[in-house]
């Protein structure tokens, strides 16, 4: 511990009067961090182009982007939570449990393979699903801000419990007879492009603008950077955190809806294991795990880069069995690179 201190704190000779000239280059480097994956994405496109002529086609790229959508909503939520200095692992379970619970409440008890309760009208499936997401976020947020339990352990517990809830209700099977409204967003097309692309694009646009140009969005950075200072600056830190947790879980539920539409059923394993990719995308996209740093645009480039890697590997005929290995190695390499481009020690 003591050894490390030395590197971080090399003393600087203080010149009386005026101190330290403006560091223009530093500003530039800090800005650059948000765009550091752009060249990586460019490189991936180039590699893909070399590997297969079918790669760089509108059809394939749309496919890649659509595959990004579900994950990207989780990354957006997680990035906001991470910027505010917290974390939520349970998002991946919300992806599955929110649609299952909503379907359970609206599907009639008799007549199908999956027996629901049928207590609520069918039209309410989508709002219900989002509401369940918000509720899970509310629980996580209240625990994080009021009861103050370590978010890592708490949300890990939630991850397991919610996954268990989904398995309990669905009996461990996929649900095929889902209401049409739940499927709509994930498989319809608007203006010739998948609706999910428009939805995610719009949400990211709103998120980027809010976190970049609005006081309430900026308060996430203040809370993650120094919560005590944020409080003395008049930011209602607990309220902001609560809202962020609720937004993130709602987005996870929406991600679940898109997934259901994309694949036509509620998969029993929907969302399982996503959280690793969510964190990987956020971190290689420049979001700091220590809070206070990062941008939603960066996080988005993280998701796109991850999906492109998988896509390029498919075209390169790498057996899918090796996907995880390559994925992991690339994430590790990206982390090492981002450690040095950001110049920030991650202890």
């Amino acid at each position, binding site marked *: *511990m*003591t*050894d490390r*201190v*030395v590197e971080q704190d*090399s*003393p*600087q*000779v*203080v010149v*009386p*009067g*005026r*101190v*330290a*000239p*403006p*560091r*223009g280059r*530093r*500003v530039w480097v*800090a800005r650059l961090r948000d765009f550091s994956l752009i060249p990586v994405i460019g490189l991936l496109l180039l590699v893909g182009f070399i590997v297969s002529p079918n790669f760089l086609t509108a059809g394939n790229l749309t496919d890649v982007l659509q595959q990004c959508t579900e994950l990207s909503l989780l990354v957006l939520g997680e990035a906001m939570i991470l910027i505010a200095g917290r974390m939520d692992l349970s998002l991946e379970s919300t992806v599955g449990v929110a649609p299952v619970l909503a379907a359970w409440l609206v599907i009639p008890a008799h007549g199908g393979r999956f027996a629901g309760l049928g207590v609520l009208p069918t039209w309410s499936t989508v709002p219900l699903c989002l509401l369940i997401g918000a509720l899970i976020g509310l629980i996580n947020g209240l625990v994080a801000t009021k009861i103050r339990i370590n978010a890592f352990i708490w949300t890990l517990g939630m991850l397991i419990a919610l996954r268990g809830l989904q398995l309990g209700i669905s009996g461990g099977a996929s649900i095929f007879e889902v209401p049409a409204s739940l499927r709509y967003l994930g498989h319809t097309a608007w203006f010739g492009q998948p609706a999910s692309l428009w939805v995610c694009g719009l949400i990211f646009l709103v998120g980027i603008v809010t976190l*970049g*140009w*609005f*006081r309430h969005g*900026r*308060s996430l*950075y*203040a809370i*993650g*950077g*120094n919560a*005590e*200072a*944020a409080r*003395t*600056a*008049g*930011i209602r830190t607990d309220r902001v955190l609560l809202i962020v947790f609720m937004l993130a879980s709602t987005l996870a539920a929406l991600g679940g809806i898109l997934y259901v539409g994309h694949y036509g059923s509620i998969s029993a394993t929907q969302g399982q294991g996503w959280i690793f990719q969510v964190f990987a995308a956020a971190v290689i996209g420049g979001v*700091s795990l220590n*809070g*206070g*740093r990062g941008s939603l645009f960066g996080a988005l480039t993280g998701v796109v880069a991850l999906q492109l890697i998988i896509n390029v590997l498919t075209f390169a005929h790498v057996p899918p069995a090796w996907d995880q290995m390559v994925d992991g190695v690339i994430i590790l390499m990206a982390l090492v690179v981002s450690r040095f481009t950001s110049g920030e020690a991650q202890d």
Partner: protein
Amino acid sequence: MSADDITPVASATGVTKRFGATVALDDVGLTVLPAESHALVGRNGAGKSTLVSVLTGLIRPDAGTVRFAGEPAPPVTDRAAWRSRVACVYQKSTIIPTLSVAENLYLNRQDTVGDTRGRISWKAVHENAARLLGNWSIDVDPKVEAGRLTVEQRQTLEIARALSFGARFVILDEPTAQLDGAGIARLFERLRALQAGGVAFLFISHHLQEIYEICQTVTVYRDAKHVLTAPVAGLRREALIEAMTGDATGLRELGEHAGAVPAGAAELLRVEHLTGTSEFADVSLTVRAGEIVGVAGAVGAGAVALGETVVGLRKPLSGTVCVAGRPVRPGSVPAALSAGVGFLPEDRHRQGLVPLRSIAENLTLTVTDRLGRFGFVSQPARYRTATALMERLDVKASGPDQPVSALSGGNQQKVMMGRALASEPRVLVLIRPTAGVDVKSKESLLGTVEAAAAEGRAALIVSDELDDLRVADRVIVMFKGRVVAQLPRGWSDREMVAAIEGLHSEGTDSGE
């Protein structure tokens, strides 16, 4: 209190605050007049911090009233109203290191700058910040991350931000704790200029000298009670200390331990031509058994880096460190420890204490190898060692089991001193050993150093605090990485400050 015809900018009357069973403030009052610099002093636990929280609206008192310019204080929830009445520069930095300087200045009101409604105009924020920084002659790009600022720049930034809300009353909680002499001088210059402009200050400090320098009135709290309010001019130092401590004795005259070091005393520490990576160059010095040598220097003079190099926290470029005649492997803390060096680091929070662990564990952290065999740590042995050290250093705590984070600053520093002594070292290296502790603890800590020297240890005190240096037999003064002077015991404050600030002309040799 004398507010006959002038309306005070801030006044608190009959304020009482309890936290559970502890009474943090017991029916206390305070009145600050316009353009006055008012000092609030008291030992740790006197209730100063609680009063600051009450005066800044962070906590609501159980009883009593707070008024600003004659008007009752706004409700605790109305932060904006509080900030336009009272500004506070807290002891803990409220600068957010990951955000830009400009954003820190306009934190949570970024959208009020410029003529865009709701949306933040970054152009306007940066322009306004640049102007504000210019007025305060803080020479930084408003777009850089605030974490890159120096301590002094950050603090000036905090004052600038606090005043930009329009308050005419500013609370400064220990503003000089992390500044060097020149930084303090510049801070005081700024405060005087603001005061001339009609701004009133509440100045909280452990350094009585500073109070005499900058304040007109002083209020003393002791054990949550109001003890004294008096004009600074005409109040003797002893009387002030007596009011703080409740003892008639006052600060014991330091530096009176047994005369000269015997000529034949063994040389325990020898530093030869030691050169750091960039901080200091070609420093040689020796410390004999029973001797206390001071190393003085402002921030950036290289004194702290020298101390950290001697104990192995930093690796030197060249030069040697010998303990009791044997060279110590450079850049290795374990090597320095086993050679017989005991060490008190500069920042007890960052480099020293393990906050949630017990006093006993913190005291014995460096000597676990002596408390048992084969890596096994014997609890009874740890307790014996810890209890003995606590007694020797007069650590005030409920017992060796208490978590160290529950102690006051002074007692935490005693724990750090105890750890330095735990290994029964031949050489003690102490870096700013009394930083941020109250008068009583300071006296006790320096007494411990004198006692350690009397036992035949060699002590090296690296500090820019005159009281610390007073116990030294001689003081080596560094300036910009070089040894510029050596002052034997008996130096005057002016002489020492001049040397630290680099005004000393006749540089004597660097050691013998």
